[in-house]
C-alpha cells in the first residue's frame, strides 16, 4: 500500500519534470522520444508526449537546453542537449532536492520510529 494518493504522486511527478528532463540530458544529447523513455525507465512514470514537447520547448526558450536538427539516422530528428545554464540549473535543482529530502527525512524518520515503538492501542 502506498502512503501517497494518486493525485499527490502525480503532483510530485509533475513538479519534478523539469529537473528529470535536465538530469536525463546530463548524460548527453537526446531526442524527445528517447528522453521520454529514459524518464519512464528511471521513474516508472510516463511524461505524456503532450506535456513533454511544450516542456522541452520551454526549456529551450529559457536557454537551458539547445536543440539541433540532424539526419544521421535517415530521417530528420531534433536533438536536445544541456547548455551551461542548464547545467547550472540542474546543479541547483539537485541541491534543492537533496536539501528537501534531508528535511523530510529529519521529520519523518523520528516520527516513524515513534509510531513503530509506540503503536496506538485503539
Amino acid at each position, binding site marked *: 500500500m502506498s502512503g501517497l494518493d494518486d493525485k499527490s504522486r502525480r*503532483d510530485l511527478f509533475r513538479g519534478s519534470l523539469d529537473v528529470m528532463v535536465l538530469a536525463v540530458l546530463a548524460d548527453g544529447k537526446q*531526442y*524527445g*522520444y528517447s528522453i*521520454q523513455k529514459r524518464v519512464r525507465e528511471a521513474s516508472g512514470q*510516463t511524461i*505524456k*508526449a*503532450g506535456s513533454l*514537447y*511544450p516542456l522541452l*520547448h*520551454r526549456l529551450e*526558450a*529559457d536557454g537551458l537546453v539547445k536543440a539541433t*536538427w540532424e539526419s544521421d539516422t535517415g*530521417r*530528420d*530528428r*531534433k536533438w536536445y542537449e544541456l547548455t551551461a545554464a542548464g547545467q547550472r540549473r540542474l546543479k541547483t535543482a539537485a541541491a534543492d532536492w537533496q536539501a528537501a529530502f534531508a*528535511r523530510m527525512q529529519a*521529520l519523518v524518520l523520528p516520527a516513524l520510529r515513534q509510531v513503530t515503538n509506540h503503536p496506538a492501542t485503539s
Partner: protein
Amino acid sequence: MSEREFEAYLNLLARTLKLSEAQRQRISGELRDHLEERLQELTDDGIDREAAVSAALEEFGEANTLADNLTNRRKLKKMKYLASANRPRLVALSLVALALLAFGVYRGAFYTPTPSVPNASPDSPLASAPPSSTETRKPGPQALIEATVYDADPVLWESFRQISIGEAEPNASVLLLPNEATVLPTHLQSEASLTRLASPNLLVPFGESAELLIGESEVGDQPNHVRTSGVGIHVTPWWHHESRTLEMSLTFYAHRAIDTETLKPIATTTTQSPGINLESTTSRAWLQNG
C-alpha cells in the same frame, strides 16, 4: 511511411499553431518522428497496428490543447525577450508607479473593506462606473490607460475592472489594481478575518505570473510554509502587440500552501466556497484599451 491518422493530427495541429510556416513545419517534423517511433515500439510489442496508432496519438492529447501549449511557450520566449530588452524602462516604469502610489494618486485603489458584490453583472452600475482613482490620474509620457473588460464573467469583471496598462511601455508590464473585496466569499467579509498577504498593486511583467492573495494565513506543516485560505488569484498577463489587447490567464484557488522563502506554491486546492464559484478554476479575460 506515416500513418494517415498521424498526418491528419499533425495537419490539424499545424493549422492551429499561431506560428510561422517554418516553425509549424519544424514542430510537425519533431512530433511525427515521435509518433513513428512510438508506433514502431507498440507494434513490436505485439499491439495491433490500428490500436497502436490510436494509443500513440492519445499520448499527445487534443491537437488544439497541444498547439495552445506550444504557442504559449513561444510567446513566453518573445515576452521574456521584450521584458529583458526593456528592463531599464521597466525599472523606470516601476519607479514611476511607486512614486504615483506614494503621492496617493491611486488612493482609491488601496484596499478598504467594502460590501461584497460577488454576483454583480457587467451591466450593474457598480461595474460600469469608472474607478474613482482614474479621475486624479495625470496625463503624460508615463500616463496609465484604462482597460475595459469584456467577455469576462461577473466575478472577473469586478476583480479586474481597474487594470491599467503602462501606455508608455505596453510590452513591459501590467499594473494590477484589483478591487479585491468584491470577490470575497460571504464568510470572509469581516475586516478582522482579512490579512493582506501581498501588495494591493502588482507590477507584473508580461509572460510572467503573480499572485493576488486575500484571506487568512497560518503557519504550515513545515518550516517556511504558510497556508492561505480565502480567495487567491494566480494571474499571467500577455500583451498582444498587433491588436493592442491584453490577455489575462486567471486561476482562482481557495487554499494554497506557499514556501515563504521562494514564494512558490507547494500545494493548491480549489474548492467550493460560499459566495464564489471556484469550480471553474481557470478563466481568461480579454481586455482591450478603453
